[in-house]
């Protein structure tokens, strides 16, 4: 009887002991909380005192928001969301009559896009703080934001393209920004485009476009397109210094799969980095060697004098076929579906990041030139010479992490690569290709950014991680969670996490620049005497109302704190009313808003000196209120008015008044 009792007791005791041991010893169970890796003074290092400014602007893509977000660093404070390639009802962008043209393409008005890669304009290879370009991924376009006004001033559509991903990276003096097709597609006339999808190999083509922004106005036009074999282009960067004159594009799907790409496009050991001799292409284009092919596209420009968009329509585009021009393109083999394609600040090295590769290859521009000179090719791909991997390789970063995506550079010869799968940033030396440090990111980093980190002059103070997953990092907000960025110091040998900050949309690439390069450009208001809008009212004496058939035009002004006119009668059902509203203020930070009940579009938000037009179609008889939406002064709540709408057959005369007390008495 005693023995079973003893056995049972001992067994229970062992289990209890094991249970206690398991729960008390560290490392025996997965930890449920994220380890805190911030150091003690992190808070002080990101604290920007109230009333003082951040050191850097951080321009972050909005991803599926289609916009560009502006943050201050190191605080991570959101300063503004610039409407770029999606409509923005709060400012009237894409809703006012003047801004609709900015989002109009050869396929009509496109209210949404997916913005991925902001790229600052450069002078001598250094970000100059003038413009920020950003790509529209879905309906291929490149937009340009003026950093004096933080407004979109140019948008160009890219013809013969599908999925504008490897864009809009710039050459060292912003002679060109580029656009490469993510999807290869059949091009040409209707008959050559209407082909079975399975004829990918024969009929599908890629191309890369070189777009020239006018140095003064920024107006963009396509200088030339280079057609390529049908593959997917992913990312790109321009050469610099010794590699100036070349452009590098990563490409995947050299399997030329057209279905189930996650498997079918992951078969080959190596895909390519495509090297483009753009100086040669430029010369060929100049010498008339290209061919003009159909490719209707719109280039929209924002005129700051007329406060309106202007569209130039192009019917065709100049294309160069590399088959006719040897020396234009070369392929460098790069392991496993390369994504990031980054050139170091010296311009000597090109880093390709194969998403599925277990190493990061670093190519040498010098070796590439030597290999080209010696025709050291392993063969060709659809007629384009393929260089030997070993001949162009500078070195491989061994065991760097899992899922390398993108690389940015500091000013001390180091590279920082993001790893999506192992969720970390790895710092390594470009010359020695040795790993120096690694830090975790929370979670699954995509792009990363160092101020000036893809230019010839990085300001190597911070690296910012833009993560794809946030999970438990913030207060939960239902199934859809905050998007997230993380700020790390890279001033010391070790990277240090300083700050998490949430972002708008889904952040992809970003750029950062010292605030001192941007601040002196800031426009405070638009000069009313320079306003050339066809419906401007430069003072209340210019306000009026006019009927043109079913159209009623109102020349209206705003000033603290009233509209002129603010009593409108004689509008009839069936009319279309155009409110041309001019903000007469001439001081910084005095916008006025204009909203009218039942407007099916949006409001207007008018900066001082600006004129914008809201179209309103009344749907019922009665008196409709309108008011100012921006708290403009102590008497903002008095800033309002009425529009009387009468039946279609009414004889009420058309009047527009502002009635003063004297007139009433």
């Amino acid at each position, binding site marked *: 009887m005693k023995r079973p009792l003893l056995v049972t007791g001992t067994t229970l005791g062992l289990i209890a002991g094991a249970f206690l041991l398991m729960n008390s010893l560290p490392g025996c169970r997965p930890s449920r909380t994220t380890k805190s890796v911030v150091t003690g003074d992190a808070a002080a290092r990101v604290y920007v005192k109230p009333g003082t400014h951040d050191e850097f602007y951080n321009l972050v893509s909005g991803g599926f928001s289609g916009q560009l977000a502006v943050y201050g660093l190191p605080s991570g404070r959101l300063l503004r969301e610039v409407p770029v390639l999606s409509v923005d009802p709060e400012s009237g962008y894409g809703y006012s009559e003047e801004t609709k043209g900015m989002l109009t393409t050869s396929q009509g008005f496109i209210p949404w896009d997916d913005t991925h890669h902001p790229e600052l304009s450069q002078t001598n290879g250094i970000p100059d703080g003038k413009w920020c370009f950003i790509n529209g991924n879905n309906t291929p376009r490149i937009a340009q934001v003026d950093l004096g006004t933080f407004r979109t001033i140019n948008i160009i559509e890219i013809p013969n393209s599908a999925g504008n991903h490897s864009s809009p990276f710039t050459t060292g003096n912003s002679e060109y920004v580029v656009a490469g097709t993510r999807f290869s597609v059949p091009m040409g006339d209707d008959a050559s485009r209407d082909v079975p999808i399975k004829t990918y190999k024969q009929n599908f083509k890629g191309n890369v476009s070189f777009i020239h922004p006018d140095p003064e106005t920024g107006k963009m036009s396509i200088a030339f397109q280079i057609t390529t074999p049908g593959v997917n282009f992913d990312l790109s960067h321009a050469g610099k210094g010794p590699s100036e004159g070349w452009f590098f594009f990563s490409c995947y799907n050299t399997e030329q799969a057209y279905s189930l790409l996650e498997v079918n496009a992951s078969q080959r050991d190596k895909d390519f980095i495509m090297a483009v001799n753009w100086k040669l292409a430029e010369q060929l284009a100049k010498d008339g060697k290209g061919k003009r092919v159909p490719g209707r596209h719109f280039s929209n420009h924002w005129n700051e004098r007329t406060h309106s968009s202007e569209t130039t329509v192009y019917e065709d585009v100049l294309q160069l076929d590399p088959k006719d021009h040897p020396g234009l393109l070369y392929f460098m083999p790069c392991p496993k579906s390369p994504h990031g394609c980054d050139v170091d600040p010296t311009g000597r090295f090109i880093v390709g990041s194969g998403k599925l590769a277990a190493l990061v290859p670093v190519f040498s521009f010098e070796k590439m030139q030597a290999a080209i000179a010696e025709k050291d090719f392993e063969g060709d791909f659809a007629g384009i010479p393929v260089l030997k991997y070993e001949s162009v390789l500078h070195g491989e970063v061994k065991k760097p992490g899992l899922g390398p995506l993108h690389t940015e550079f500091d000013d001390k010869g180091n590279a920082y690569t993001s790893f999506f799968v192992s969720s970390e940033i790895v710092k390594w030396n470009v010359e020695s290709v040795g790993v120096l440090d690694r830090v975790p990111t929370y979670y699954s980093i995509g792009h990363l950014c160092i101020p000036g980190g893809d230019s010839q002059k990085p300001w190597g103070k911070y690296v910012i991680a833009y993560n794809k997953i946030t999970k438990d990092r913030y207060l939960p907000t239902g199934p859809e969670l905050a998007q997230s960025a993380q700020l790390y110091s890279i001033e010391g040998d070790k990277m240090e996490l300083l700050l998490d900050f949430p972002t708008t949309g889904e952040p992809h690439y970003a750029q950062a620049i010292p605030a001192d390069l941007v601040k002196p450009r800031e426009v405070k208001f638009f000069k009313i005497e320079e306003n050339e809008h066809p419906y401007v009212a430069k003072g209340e004496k210019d306000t009026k109302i006019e009927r043109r058939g079913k159209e009623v035009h109102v020349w209206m002004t705003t000033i603290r704190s009233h509209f002129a006119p603010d009593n409108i009668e004689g509008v009839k059902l069936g009319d279309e009313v155009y409110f041309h509203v001019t903000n007469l203020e001439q*001081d910084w930070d005095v916008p006025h808003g204009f909203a009218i009940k039942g407007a099916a579009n949006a409001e207007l938000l008018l900066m001082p000196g600006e004129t914008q037009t809201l179209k309103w179609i009344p749907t019922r008889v009665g008196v409709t209120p309108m008011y100012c939406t921006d708290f403009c002064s102590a008497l903002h709540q008095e800033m309002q008015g009425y529009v009387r709408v009468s039946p279609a057959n009414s004889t009420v005369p058309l009047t527009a008044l502002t009635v003063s007390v004297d007139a009433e008495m």
Partner: protein
Amino acid sequence: MKPISRVMIAIAALALLALLIVPIWRIDLQAPQYPEGLFIQIYADHFAGDVEKINGLNHYIGMATIHDEMFPEFIYLPRVLIALAAFGVLAALWGKRRGLFAGLITLSAFGLWALYDMYKWGYSYGHELDPRAAIKVEGQAYQPPLIGHKQLLNFDAWSTPDTGGWVLFGVMGLLAGVYFLELRRKKPAKPATA
């Protein structure tokens, strides 16, 4: 008078011509909403600075708007300044102490008149308010300070001489100094018998 005194008088007189180009007076305004501040500069013939912004604000409290055309001073002030300078040069050429004395008196009279004129305009702007103004504060007038600081509702106002004002004061000081030295120089020559 000593030649050096006459040269000084001539320099002082010609320095007055600077008032034709540099601002003479300035009024600075600061409020919580205007951390960068607003200011008006008064030149011999026009206003400069944030006149339009201030006009925009004045309508709340019913103050009249300010425009160059409303001030006849802007037409005759440059002429008066040229006349004063000419007077000074003539006094230097003439070389008599009496001439310097007359110049000093005229210039002081001009300075006093200018201050009075500014006060008068300030008074009427600050007191003659539009009865329909949106903001009415019982007993509140908006006369800017003649010189120094004053609080006007949410605004702090400072009135101070600008470059031209200091030049004017400098000229007056210089002339007074020369006059004083000339008086002292003459004294030992004429033994005190009175």
